[in-house]
């Protein structure tokens, strides 16, 4: 039972409660701070980087972390690893968020329409989603990239498309339960248009699971984008994207393990923080799920 009951603007009142509950979760709060810091780095990273991330110096290659002038060492071309990581934050994290936004926009629209209107449109949309889901995302992404050519934007597009079914399904199932509520019926009785009902009443009340899903999904998208780049399908050299750095560094894993360790850790920290925050949010938004 949704606490707001028949309240027409239920989601607004639940706001402070969510924050109170989230605050009690130390890990979620810590993750929030980590993510804020990552966000700041994504914005100012390129300005505080000590070196040009593309500047090569073959006589200073594969220097270990702690080398004067190169806090995190240098890579196989003598480029500064710290500067590349700082520059890469915007790309790697930004791609994750953007891909989620794109997938969400398409998926939620589809899910809302399918769930609310039902009938033939619902069947059609959901079979389309089934087809998309039947493809492993890597295969789907490779097919898309084969058609569009490799590159960061195309990789982002590919994983975003691969993510659409996830949002469409979550939205649809949330909408299915919301649309039977009395307050929706009340709106209908008052003569509200479908558009108004969907946007003002159905969507806000179906939002909680979507937000949780998106938070958890950003981490997944970041990993997927890095994976695409690792496979050579995403960002192209010399872009300082974390997946590219991992991929290039793996050939030097014995002589210079920091080349894989540093971008690997960066991805690990961001994704872990996102998952912990997502977990916390889910508990806070929907206390019933806590022990399941």
């Amino acid at each position, binding site marked *: 039972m949704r606490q707001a009951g028949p309240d027409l603007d239920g989601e607004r009142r639940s706001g402070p409660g969510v924050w109170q509950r989230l605050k009690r979760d130390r890990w979620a709060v810590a993750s929030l701070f980590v993510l804020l810091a990552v966000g700041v780095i994504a914005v100012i990273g390129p300005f505080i980087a000590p070196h040009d991330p*593309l500047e090569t110096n*073959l006589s200073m290659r594969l220097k270990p972390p702690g080398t004067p002038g190169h806090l995190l060492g240098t890579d196989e071309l003598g480029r500064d690893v710290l500067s590349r990581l700082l520059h890469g934050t915007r790309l790697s994290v930004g791609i994750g968020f953007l891909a989620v936004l794109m997938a969400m926009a398409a998926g939620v629209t589809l899910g809302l329409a399918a769930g609310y209107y039902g009938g033939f449109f619902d069947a059609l949309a959901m079979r389309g989603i089934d087809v998309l889901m039947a493809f492993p995302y890597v295969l789907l992404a490779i097919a898309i990239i084969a058609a569009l050519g490799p*590159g960061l934007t195309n990789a982002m597009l590919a994983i975003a498309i691969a993510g659409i079914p996830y949002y469409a399904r979550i939205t649809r199932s949330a909408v299915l339960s919301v649309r039977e509520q009395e307050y929706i019926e009340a709106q209908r009785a008052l003569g509200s248009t479908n558009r108004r009902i969907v946007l003002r009443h159905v969507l806000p009340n179906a939002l909680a699971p979507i937000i949780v899903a998106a938070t958890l999904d950003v981490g997944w998208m970041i990993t997927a984008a890095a994976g695409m780049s690792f496979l050579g399908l995403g960002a192209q*050299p010399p872009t300082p994207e974390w997946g590219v750095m991992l991929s290039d560094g*793996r050939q030097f894993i*014995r002589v210079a393990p920091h080349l894989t*360790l540093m971008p*690997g850790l960066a991805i690990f920290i961001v994704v*872990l923080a996102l998952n*912990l925050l997502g977990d916390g949010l889910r508990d806070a938004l929907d206390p019933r799920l806590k022990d399941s």
Partner: protein
Amino acid sequence: MRRWLLQVSAVLAAAALVLAACGGSASDGGSGSGQQGGGQTGDLKRIVVGLQAEPVTLDPHQVTDYNSNRAAQGIFDRLVEFKDESTELEPGLAERWDVSDDGLVYRFYLRQGVTFHDGTPFNAEAVKFSIERQIDPNHPYHDTGEFAYAEFTFGKVREVRVVDEYTVEIELVEPYAPFLAHMAMHSASIVSPAAVEKYGRDFSKNPVGTGPFKFVRWEPGVEVVLEKNEEYWDGAPRVDQVIYRPIIEDQARLTEFEAGALDFIVNIPPDEVARLKASDQYTVLEQPGMHVWYLVFNVTKEPFNKKEVRQAVNYAINKRAIVEELLQNTGVLATGPLPPVVWGYTDDVTQYDYNPDKARELLAQAGYPDGFTVDFWVPESGSGMQQPRAMAAAIQADLRQVGIEMNIQTFEWGTYLDKVLGPVEELPEVFEMSWIGDNGDPDNFLYILLSGDQWPPNGFNMGYYKNEQVDELLRQAQRINDQAERQRLYEEALRLLVEDAPWAWIDHETQIVAMKKSIQGFKLHPTGVFRFENVDVVNN
């Protein structure tokens, strides 16, 4: 549940750190079949070789890549063979041969009493079959494969005649100096006609020859197993089994080698060579390679249709830094398209020493004072490609200094080859390529790679370069047999080519292999094949 997740994450993180820190000392487990590696197992002497990639075919007539060639080599013999460690020729299945005075007819006298692994006899008919199968579209077994090397190897053959059971004559349409060397190439291997008739297209998976090793089985993705031919005409090999395993990742291959699962590996990452050399467990062999690594300029498009621009790129790349630092001297600096180990070479050519100022000057002369932007294709890996990504990034950084921006696009090797040999309209302005010589003749570099007659699909002139003067010199050099005169012609062609700069050549890779100390008597061959017939495995 959250606490549980955290603990797992922490453990995973720690494990990842430890793994990375000790440099992946654990075996990756995914490759190989998990059997204990070679050496002497009981009484069996076995060598397990780690290849760069899966062989494509074991039919020597269809081979186009290094890995297939290495795996198929020991199963077959040719009429003439390269000597150990050189591309000079010595008798193989032909005991001797003579050439008519006009240079048109080659008569081979065959070795008698040799049998194929399937028990059928080797004779003149088998020679005729092996050649005609590839070049005669009406031959009943022509459709048992695609013979990419046939045109290059036998393009000048008019007729193959069986004189008697053990004598065969090959007539050419015109004198062709490199022909005898062609007869020692993989595409001139003698295959069992009975086996081709029996297996048809599946001959590539069931190869039958007369060579020192017999084919046992091929498990795709896992291994190719050969065993010694006890009846080999030149004496049975001392090793009982040779196994070829494809392991694509250089680091994974090295790890398996050091873990003991492989006895012999190729393509050691440059930064690891010194460590292996210092170890007393391994032998590391090196030999200057018949190889060249280069950027192909697409001369059908701006801006590389201009000589000054091509020269500018050659000046703008710090090739020495790439060879000495990035490649750790696992190659020698190239001064032109031909490696110094192949005769015909000369260093009396235009020298492109690193000089960004000169490059800027040339670009301005060509009408690009502010540089330009081009697409640059790069493979992820590939035989002979050395460190394609890192080298691309280094070149890209050097060229940025003179105002040339390169958009790198990377592709998986198979896709890459399809694309660069595809329609010329779809080619980018510049891309990476490398070539490994097949027979030690300069014709096998200069003609096939740079002659205007050899645009794909005929040959491998992938930048569609054409220079009438060079073409004429190269054709002339094919028609005469006097090596001193041919040397002069090739030197002349090289001078013209280097000045015209159809490529930016970087280096000639040194062949490097590492093997366990127990493997004795192995010699590298300039063509890159592995000969295990005179090798022994001795455990102390």
